[in-house]
């Protein structure tokens, strides 16, 4: 809301999808055919729709999840109840969902080898829950050309939510890889909430003003691809070349080859200039030709897990927690339970830096014992969750923090990144624009 009303913007990009989100949405849709998209999106649109229409702000979002069709309908409904009926259009991008086509695609020669491990998909094929190709900007551009005020997609490259509107607005040619590379950089800087504007920022974090009302990033892009990163006037946070650089290096591999469906961007070419007043100019972006393949995100069932915690107090808190861990492990072994993995961490000591934290001092005031287990079957994990609370009465003393009850058993959805030929996906992509 603040982003729409806090000052003039032309486009609002809203990213709703983490890597495993699609599998969760797939699960929801299997129970309810009308579900499977980001449920926050339509209520948000209901609030901002009139301001977007009167202010000429067009919204691009991947909130469609595994059911962009139902998401588009919900947005249309939200538009009607917010009073913009007859004044707005909603664009719907589909065709990223490969789940129904998976067997056909494999029969046609797609291998879907795991990009990280090289393993063949056959090893998990029966357990696949969702499979979606990351689409590029072309369908977003098409929807905008057709007059969509709101574009709803399923899985697409996060950065395409930002560089798609730029390609549309400036008419950047699909082979203009430097400009698209600049748009990719703008999208990457833009896509993680306030992480470019002072949120999660390690540079003098204690001095960053008013994070309670932090401004979200805005990119002001010129036709040549140079852009300024900023935030609305009067909002909290901070934009400097250092805060922007922290976001540029976030969740990347080779910075010279940041791969998207439309270009391979080179972040090492970027030059940042502080303009003052929370404005940073970004120039010099380079890009190279897009690849022949698209990335596919596959999620598959990989068993069950649970994490249990107990808090031990001074004196000798860490020693007590470690003793409790031994007792629990002996109990579980005695019960004949087998786990793929069992992990013990001491929160307040080594759960974030491991052995780099050194040995805990004897006068550590308190520590939380955190034990996680994972197994292919649900039963041993379930049993584990019933073995935590008894430790309070049967194990080492000065223990508390179990009031929350038994740990929750969670299904594990594992992530399987793969590639697919472009030609196997792009002819199936559809763009549909509907009146509110």
């Amino acid at each position, binding site marked *: 809301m603040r982003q729409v009303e806090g000052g003039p913007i032309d486009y609002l990009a809203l990213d709703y999808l983490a890597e495993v989100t699609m599998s969760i949405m797939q699960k929801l849709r299997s129970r309810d055919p009308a579900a499977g998209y980001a449920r926050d999106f339509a209520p948000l649109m209901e609030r901002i729709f009139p301001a977007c229409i009167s202010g000429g702000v067009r919204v691009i979002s991947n909130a469609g999840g595994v059911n962009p069709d139902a998401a588009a309908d919900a947005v249309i409904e939200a538009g009607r109840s917010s009073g913009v009926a007859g004044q707005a259009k909603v664009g719907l991008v589909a065709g990223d969902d490969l789940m129904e086509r998976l067997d056909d695609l494999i029969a046609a020669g797609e291998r879907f080898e795991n990009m990280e491990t090289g393993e063949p998909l056959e090893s998990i094929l029966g357990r696949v829950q969702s499979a979606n190709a990351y689409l590029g900007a072309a369908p977003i551009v098409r929807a905008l050309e057709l007059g969509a005020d709101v574009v709803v997609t399923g899985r697409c490259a996060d950065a395409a939510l930002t560089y798609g509107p730029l390609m549309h607005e400036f008419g950047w040619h699909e082979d203009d890889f430097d400009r698209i590379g600049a748009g990719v950089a703008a999208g990457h800087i833009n896509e993680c909430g306030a992480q470019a504007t002072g949120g999660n920022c*390690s540079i003098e974090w204690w001095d960053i003003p008013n994070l309670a009302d932090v401004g979200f990033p805005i990119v002001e892009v010129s036709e040549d691809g140079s852009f300024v990163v900023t935030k609305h006037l009067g909002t909290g946070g901070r934009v400097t070349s*250092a805060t922007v650089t922290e976001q540029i*290096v976030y969740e990347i591999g080779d910075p010279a080859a940041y791969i998207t469906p439309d270009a391979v961007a080179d972040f090492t070419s970027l030059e940042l200039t502080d303009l003052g007043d929370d404005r940073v100019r970004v120039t010099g972006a380079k890009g190279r030709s897009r690849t022949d393949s698209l990335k596919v995100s596959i999620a598959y069932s*990989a068993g069950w897990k649970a994490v249990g915690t107990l808090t031990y107090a001074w004196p000798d808190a860490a020693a007590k927690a470690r003793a409790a861990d031994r007792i629990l492990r002996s109990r579980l072994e005695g019960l004949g339970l087998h786990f793929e993995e069992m992990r013990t961490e001491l929160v307040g000591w080594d759960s*974030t830096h491991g052995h780099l934290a050194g040995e805990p001092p004897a006068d550590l005031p308190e520590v939380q014992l955190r034990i996680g287990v*994972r197994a292919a079957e649900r039963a041993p994990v379930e049993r584990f969750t019933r073995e935590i609370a008894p430790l309070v009465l049967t194990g080492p003393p000065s223990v508390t923090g179990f009031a929350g009850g038994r740990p929750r058993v969670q299904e594990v959805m*594992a992530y399987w990144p793969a590639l697919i030929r472009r030609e196997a996906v792009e002819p199936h992509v559809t763009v549909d624009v509907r009146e509110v």
Partner: protein
Amino acid sequence: MAFVQLVDLAHARSGDKGNNANVGVIAYDPEHYHLLVSQLTSARVKEHFGEIVKGPVERFELPKLHALNFLLHGALGGGGTVSLMNDAQAKVFSTALLRIEIEVSDAVAAAVTGRGRVPAGWTPGEPPGKGE
């Protein structure tokens, strides 16, 4: 010569790429970037993390941003929702790397020591409604 912790020379942000962690390290002062390039080698970072990182460490340079990016392979216990780690998304691997010691001149040590840490006596201030 003297040693300072990397936290006084650089800031950092980390995240996950599947079962790999990425740590981007940015020199506060561009003049100190060469210290990172020469001392913060892949081998040194691999040795620093030890058993935490199962696979190789790759390093990438971003000289125009006076930054290095490290990809720590096999650091997240399976990654995503598979991992049992508290920090399964590698959000604070950055600070684990900032513990590493870098050799600098006495002058640099004097200038930067404490740079990356909250000033002594700092408080978050009064809660809303209680201040001026």
